[in-house]
């Protein structure tokens, strides 16, 4: 059952569209119409983000195909991604 949404193909986070408990399956469909799943390793509140793959500390968090911040810690696939493990970085104007 689809219970998460990812916006862009290149995103490394998706959004839960119902509350999901640790141990339950998170499922989403990427824009290329393929279904993906990962087991939630923490509770994910409704409309909150989780990592769709492992993200190393310092790596960019990507949503809408764009950088929304940097990982402040190593983040596991299926882990809640929010202010506790994301650092807001004001990017340079290129």
């Amino acid at each position, binding site marked *: 059952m689809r219970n998460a949404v990812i916006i862009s193909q290149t995103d490394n986070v998706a*959004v839960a*569209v119902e509350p999901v408990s640790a141990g339950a399956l998170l499922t989403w469909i990427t824009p290329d119409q393929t279904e993906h799943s990962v087991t939630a390793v923490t509770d994910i509140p409704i409309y*909150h983000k989780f990592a769709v793959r492992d993200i190393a500390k310092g790596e960019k968090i990507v949503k809408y195909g764009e950088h*929304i911040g940097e990982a402040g810690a190593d983040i596991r696939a299926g882990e809640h991604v*929010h*202010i506790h493990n994301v650092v*807001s970085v004001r*990017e340079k*104007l290129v």
Partner: protein
Amino acid sequence: MTFSGYRRPDGRVGVRNHVLVLPASVCASDVTDKIARRVEGAVSFHNQVGCSQVPADEVWTMDVLSGYAANPNVYGTVVVSLGCENCQMDRVVAAIREKTNKPLRQVIIQEVGGTLKAEALGVQYAEELAQEAAQQEREEFPLSELILGTECGGSDPTSGLAANPLIGEICDRLVDADATAILSETTEFIGAEHILARRAINKEVRDRILFIIQRYEESLARVGELVRNGNPSPGNIAGGITTLEEKSLGCIHKGGHRDIQAVYDYARPVDKKGLVIMDTPGNDPSSIAGMVAGGAQVIIFSSGRGTPTGHPLVPVIKITGNRETWLKMRDNTDFDASPVIYGPQSLAEITDDLFGILMETVNGKKTRAEELGFVETAIARVSNYA
């Protein structure tokens, strides 16, 4: 693909055929309201400004008033002024004439001698124009004649997740058909300026994007509002928004993915094809006013909570990604975008559906706000009255 619209003598194409009874100032608004109520096909609205304004505000007011008269959904205009306001009749008429050669009539309340005489003359003029307008028939035009305005308000987490990305898909389709889409609400660009700047077609447009964002941030800072410090708000964070970049991206996604061709000041005429930006406030009625004055014939508006917003001249198609809102706010909402979240249709299929609603609306089907007769609008302001 084509749509059916009304050819105007200035070369533009409308999707509605209104007679506008235009109040030059707050002091003429009750009279224009009375006139419009008595004439089928006539519309008006309450202009709350038009006098005692600082120069920057007066520029915006004049641009909205003249832009409304020039909007292609208007067949012709009856301007009503009190007589002593700052937005004097001759100035309003000159500003309209700079933009369009459509039919125009004038009523000055202090000259004709009071409300009742002004109302009678205004009704006579509006009826003459409405009879002419009724003779005109729709013709087929290419999509490239369309200017779509985009707006979001009453947002919730589904806005950035479903409704705004869906509107972005519509913008992409229109831009690919050589039409124009307007991305508005400068307040919501703050934090995503580097992303918008990257999409500018050239350095001039890039610099202009950065300029309007900085100007907006500074104008808010002058009255003690620091956007970067207060955002995302505690409510946003509780709702799952982590950074200002993320919040702003959810908003700007409603413009789609194409390059940005131009940046327009508030309520200035939009003359470029493709995706363009207009510098408007986040406040919905005044942002929509700027785009309509710029020439947009139709608006698509995304709302999480559901809003009543309409416009006297332009159909406002309201969509929501929140399925509870779709059920609760049906009489205010035109399209259910929640399948973007829950399926079963693909984004491309839902885009087809919304594009179909857009075409039906452009071809004459009334939106919910039009059925309800909603005409409220607002003109953006920078300052208190002088």
